[in-house]
């Protein structure tokens, strides 16, 4: 295991999932892969948190799921954003930007 890989910060997993699904529906494995690839393998998604998070988000009504066939003709559960999920994505993004700015300021001040 490479040390440079980061476990995902608690709470940001939701944002990452919403962001990933923003570009179209996908199944859990692909979501994990996308996050890792897009982040240049900097971020690593724990399966142990991914699926509970997906199910919780579905219950909260931000995403919905459907069983479909993959390109390789395998049955998989595909998740997609709902309208509520899109709003949520926007909010979470704003929250993240604010957090990032805040953390940046604090770090800058400390130096």
């Amino acid at each position: 295991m490479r040390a440079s890989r980061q476990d995902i910060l608690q709470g940001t997993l939701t944002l990452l999932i919403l962001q990933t699904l923003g570009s179209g529906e996908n199944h859990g494995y692909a979501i994990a892969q996308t996050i890792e690839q897009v982040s240049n393998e900097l971020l690593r998604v724990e399966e142990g948190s991914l699926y509970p998070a997906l199910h919780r988000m579905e219950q909260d009504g931000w995403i919905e799921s459907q069983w479909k066939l993959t390109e390789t003709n395998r049955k998989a559960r595909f998740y997609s954003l709902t309208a509520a999920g899109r709003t949520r994505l926007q909010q979470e993004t704003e929250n993240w930007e604010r957090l990032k700015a805040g953390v940046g300021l604090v770090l800058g001040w400390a130096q």
Partner: protein
Amino acid sequence: MSWFNRFANTILRRDTVGQEAEDEMAFHLEERTKENIARGMTPAEARREAQMRFGSRSKLREETRDADTLVWLNTLARDSRIAMRGIVQRPGLAITAILSLGLGIGATSAIFCVVDTVLLKPLPYPDADQLVMIQETIRGEQIGGNPARRRDWQQQLTAVNGVGGLYSEGVVLTGRGEPRRLTMQRSVGPVFPILGVPPQLGRGYREGEERVVVLSHKTWQTHLGANPDILGTSLNLSQTPYTVIGVMPPTFAASTRADLYSAAPPDLDSPRRTGSWLGLVARLQPGQSLTALNTQLATVGARLGAQYPDTEAGLTARAEPLLDATTGPARRPLWLLLATIGAVLLVVCANLSSLLLVRASERQREFAVRSAMGAERFALLRLQLLESLWLGLIGGGLGVLVAYWGVELLKYLLPADLPRVETVQLDGRVAIFALGLALVAGLLCGLLAALGGASRATADHLRDGLRTTRRTWLRPAFVTLQVVLSTLLLAGATRFTESLISNLRTPLGFNPNGVIALSYSFPWDTPGRKLYSTFQQSLDRFAAIPGVTSVAFVDRLPLGGGTQSGQIEIPGHEFPPALRNLPVSHRAISDNYFATLGVPLQSGRIFHPPTTNLVEAVINATFAKLYFPNEDPIGRKFTFDTKREPGKAPNWITIVGVAADIRQELRQTRQPPEAYVPFNSVYWPQANFVLRTNGDPTSIMAAARQEFLTIDPLLPIESLRPLTDDVKEASSQTRTIASLLGGFALTALLVAAIGLYGLLAGEVTAQRREIGIRLALGAEPSAVLSGVVRRGLILVAAGLALGLALTVPALRLVASQITDPNDSPLNAALLAGLIMLTVALVASLIPARRASRVDPATALRHE
């Protein structure tokens, strides 16, 4: 929506949800494995890496399920399943608990239903709690109301809004099919405004309005076809036409039991102050209390007594709520039943706690394991509570069923003249009450058991195995409580049975077997001549029916109670006051009466042929014994004419014969002296005929009915039945109470025995090892046996002592109402004690024998 979704997932889709999560994870693993292979790993390596990354699948499965479902509901469902499994594992315990709880709760609810309907529900009148009944007494003796006095009360009492007087009389409805006997309630004063219930149809009558009648709803429905055009039509009631002006609503009859309502004839509302036959009702003025009214009654009563010393000296009066007055005689037996069944319920609950306590102590090891595995104490408590909750729920469900059938059974068992008993039914409130009661009982018992037993699940239990010989005080206390209550119930049941048996054993003085009784009555204004000729005609016609061997007339049948009576005077005799004031009953009979009922004539003869003058009488043995202790009464004279004007010669009656005593009431504590006079020498329009038969009673009853139609087609027969029915009916209340109490007592006894057995059996199991060691060291098996029995008997003896100590005052409390208060309750208490001890002995012997047969080798290897 999310909540609902999760709820649906929990309840309806739990398997689907689990399976989908499983599939999803399988897919993920496969994809990862494929990718790993693509990166150059061997398939085995690829799979292992994928699995390692994935972590614990079962943990993941749980976490996704928690996301999809309601966690608490899941826990509840899981714990319920475990609890259910626990219940099913011990079917004996479960069945005992559920059955006893169901029976206890069901019976309590059923009796509560009756008490509620009969005693507690307000009467169906507006502001019914303001209605009172006024009871007058003169020199301590209760009397009825008099119309002139009613007027005085109404004028002088300011605490009430008018005073109404009521009485009922029998009338015969003719001209509408078969003649029918109906009860007409007559009123003096503003009865309808006082009760405050407007008729459903038409109007009520005005005070003193003549020849108009208001129908009860039932009369309108059953006898007049519920025809709404009935208003304004005429009804022929005892040969007098009445105009129907109204119909009362169905609820109204609940406490009056009359078929028709009408004003008393105006001539009856006279200033005459003799004659007292009214029931007085009144409504409190707003803001006035019962106490204020009673104070006024005392003042006004004293004033009236001074004003009319001839008729009203010593007059007092008391008011009580109308509800209490109408339910008066039923009150104590019903509360008694409720208290009894409450005691049974307590025994049941104590037993349930005790059973659950055994269960808890048996599971101490299991709970120790569970808590060692990390179960929280609360989770363990929850598990135990769920188990007792489920037992309570099932028991409660059974209880509702039992209550439903119990109400029907009680309606059948309880005397039909109990007010409002026919309207008793299990309503939703009581059903919910029953279920709630069961749940609370279950929870409380479970909580007691859990706190008393299982919470001490510690590592010690794991280390030492099941060697808990510590005795808790809780279970023995429960057993003792059960014994106390069962003893009380047993003593009560024994007491009533004893009284019933003694009532039934005492000779009736007549032979009711093979005798048919037929009753009818004329209106009170029928001329005597008409009565006597009809009676004589009936005697002749009935005697001619084939299979009838003998016929007689009597004004009032034996066992029916209540004869007319008066004080007597015997020339040349001075009696002490007790004898002088003793009322002597008199009955009017035809000469065949004693022969027909099989009553032996002890001396003399019967008046024959009967004359129309009151000159001859037959007396009973008690009369002869009391008034002529040392002489032959035959030929002696006496008179009822004690209140004659001075100087006027009384109407002397000559005693011609002495007949054996006949019981006039079943629960008769003292045989009254009686004189029998010829039926046509006194005026009495109510006739009873007794027909001794030697043929088929059914066909003879039909023939008698047929014969009577030819004598007077307009007169209804009031009743026609075997005389043995009267005997049964007379004993019915005591019989009912005795059998109900007996049933309760048996239930309680059984439950208590199970409780005792359970306690001892549990202790023997817990001490198996100890007993084994003692036996191995040479203890006699008989010593072990007697040790266990002794322990059982000590518990029982404590309960028995307390129970018996309570029995005497408790029986005093109830016995005065229903049985002869002079009897000592000691027999009942002793018998109850004996039964209790025997049952306790058996219940302790079974576990004791098991203990004495413990094989030391197995017992020591056991753990």
